[in-house]
């Protein structure tokens, strides 16, 4: 099991410097993702799950953010391992979009409003699949000149592009054609009807669901090993949500891709995730197989989350909320972050930061009192209905 991992996050800590102090957004987070597996990272807004996700691609802006400690290891096909946080920028650019891709919450905001869809997808191919484009165009890549490459990568402005297209007609049109084919194929693969029309459209001309499909097409263009989906359905209509998730599942099965879902929707976890990691206030409090965790949580927070979900048994109007609120992550005290809201909190909980420890097969919990705290039995009939926190 241990050897199967594709991505391994170890002791990741990310801090943000602000005028008021240092925010410990992510604190000593560790988890693995195996090849082809679906892991869900859940938690409330502000718990650090988005920052964790972005750290994997080293997208956290480095002032004011700071990768305080930890490694994020990606395993290559030959077995070698690269630490994304320590790698050179060139290496990171190679990984982004090609080995690890990301789709974002609001496709309306994540697509550049000033560029047509085709152009935005072409960028991915231009960055990572230059050789393929050249060979598809019938050109030998080793003979590719700098100008050829620039034309394809659209580093030329419109005037220069037109000049190139005029002067080297055959070459230019072959390259353009190859690129257009690649883009069309990528769009069609995600089931987008009319890819040619979509290619020349601008983002605002497409519906929300279509935009998300485009995002997915873009992310999967180079067949990544891991797809990070940051709240992929939050901004969509309920009816579209299911379709998008099914699409991701489909693509995943076709390509043997791993998926990391960042979400606060526990029903998504139940239906699509193999394993789940629960985050609270920058730390992971529990991980394990998703069905097991949902059936029988072993951390008071997880239990509280599940108890807070409205379901058939809950009388109308009574939402079992967890008393208190998420603590400030600004220079936090060295104790269990959940202690102030936990009804099982003991003195020890306020003095030590509990570490994530294995308690059963594949189950990790960070709580000093997990045994007493979660005795209340199985929650089979309390499985989350289609609702969120």
């Amino acid at each position, binding site marked *: 099991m241990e050897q199967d991992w594709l991505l391994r996050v170890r002791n990741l800590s990310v801090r943000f410097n602000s005028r008021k102090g240092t925010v410990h957004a992510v604190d000593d987070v560790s988890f693995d993702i195996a090849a082809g597996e679906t892991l869900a990272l859940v938690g409330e807004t502000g718990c650090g799950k988005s920052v964790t996700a972005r750290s994997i691609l080293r*997208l956290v802006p480095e*002032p004011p953010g700071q990768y305080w400690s930890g490694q994020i290891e990606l395993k290559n096909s030959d077995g070698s391992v690269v630490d994304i946080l320590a790698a050179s920028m060139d290496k990171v*650019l190679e*990984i982004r*979009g090609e080995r690890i891709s990301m789709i*974002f919450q609001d496709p309306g905001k*994540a697509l*550049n409003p000033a560029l047509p869809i085709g152009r935005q997808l072409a*960028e991915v191919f231009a960055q990572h699949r230059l050789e393929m484009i050249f060979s598809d165009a019938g050109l030998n890549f080793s003979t590719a000149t700098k100008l050829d490459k620039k034309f394809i990568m659209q580093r030329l402005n419109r005037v220069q592009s037109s000049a190139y297209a005029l002067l080297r007609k055959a070459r230019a049109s072959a390259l353009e054609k190859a690129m257009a084919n690649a883009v069309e194929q990528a769009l069609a693969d995600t089931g987008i009807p009319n890819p040619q029309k979509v290619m020349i459209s601008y983002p*605002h001309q497409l519906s929300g669901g279509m935009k998300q499909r485009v995002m997915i097409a873009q992310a999967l263009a180079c067949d990544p090993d891991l797809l990070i989906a940051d709240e992929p359905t939050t901004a969509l209509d309920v009816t579209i949500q299911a379709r998008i998730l099914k699409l991701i599942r489909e693509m995943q099965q076709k390509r043997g891709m791993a998926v990391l879902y960042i979400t606060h929707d526990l029903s998504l976890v139940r239906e699509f995730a193999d394993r789940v990691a629960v985050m609270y206030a920058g730390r992971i409090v529990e991980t394990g197989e998703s069905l097991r965790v949902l059936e029988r949580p072993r951390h008071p927070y997880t239990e509280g989350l599940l108890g807070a979900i409205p379901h058939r048994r809950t009388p109308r109007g009574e939402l079992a909320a967890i008393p208190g609120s998420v603590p400030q992550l600004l220079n936090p005290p060295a104790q269990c972050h959940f202690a102030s809201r936990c009804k099982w909190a003991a003195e020890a909980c306020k003095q030590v930061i509990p570490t994530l420890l294995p308690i059963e097969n594949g189950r990790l919990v960070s709580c000093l009192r997990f045994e007493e705290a979660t005795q209340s039995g199985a929650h089979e009939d309390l499985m989350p209905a289609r609702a969120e926190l």
Partner: protein
Amino acid sequence: MQVRDYLLRRLALLPLIMLGVSVIVFTLTRFTGSPVGIYANPNMTPEEVEALEARYLLDEPIPLQFYAWISGVLQGDLGWSGVSVAPVTDVIWSKFAATLELALAAGFIAVFMGIALGTVAGVRRNQLPDHGARMFSILGASTPTFWFGLLLLVPFYLWLDWFPLGRSTQEIFTSIPHPTGLYTIDAVLALNPQAFFDALRHLVLPSVVLAFGAMAIIVRMMRSSMVEAMSEEYVDAARAKGLPDKVVIRRHARRNALLPTTTVIGLSFGFLLQGAVAVELIFRWPGLGQWVTSAVLSGDQATIMAYVLVTALIFMTVNLAVDIAYAYLDRRVVLGE
């Protein structure tokens, strides 16, 4: 189409607004001691002056006077320019061409350097280039153009003698034909490098001074729209695709940040027109600004009024052009107030 309707509406408004401007200008002319002074020149006999008074209905009620005045204007009679000792319409075109050349040069500098500086400031937010750009911006908005001009005049003209005053060296200027009225272009067309460099040497100082104020507001706008663009999600998404920073900034952030900046560019043109007054005065540039300042000092109403009309027309046209450009550039445009 929504866009076209909006633009057509704006276009239709133009003559209406010009009419309003004419009313204002006309009102101003009636404030002067003798309205006929606009048309009369010192060489006229009293009979000719009387004839003028009759022609322009100066004894009739105001609305008729306005009618006479404006029909005169539309037929090309803008009065007699005392400072140029010629009818206004004879002189105005060459003055305009000179100011146009200056404004274009300054505009060029302001736009390109302003965008560049603003981009860097926005990308490196709250770091040194940003602070520098903001200092520059606020100084540019606080410095009177006439003073800045004098400030540069002393070292570069007086001490170093790098740049001369005026627009051209007489002999070189007259040695080439002037089809466009823009010295630099004429020199290029005439394939005369000596003239070209002569033109450039005279152009440098005044256009830099003029550009300063306009550049300040462009830098400021570009910076803030860059900051906004950089914080948009599509920038992160572009990075997540593996695109290098330079490409992300240029193709994704800046392209979107340029949009609001185009409206500021239109606005800064107004700055250029206003700044030209002082700049032309100080650097002895024979354009509209210098023309009107002499007119002010000698009470030449015709010149001043013609100047207001022409400037307003230019300003409105430029603003309309900018709006058209904006509508064309913004794919998502939803116009309307």
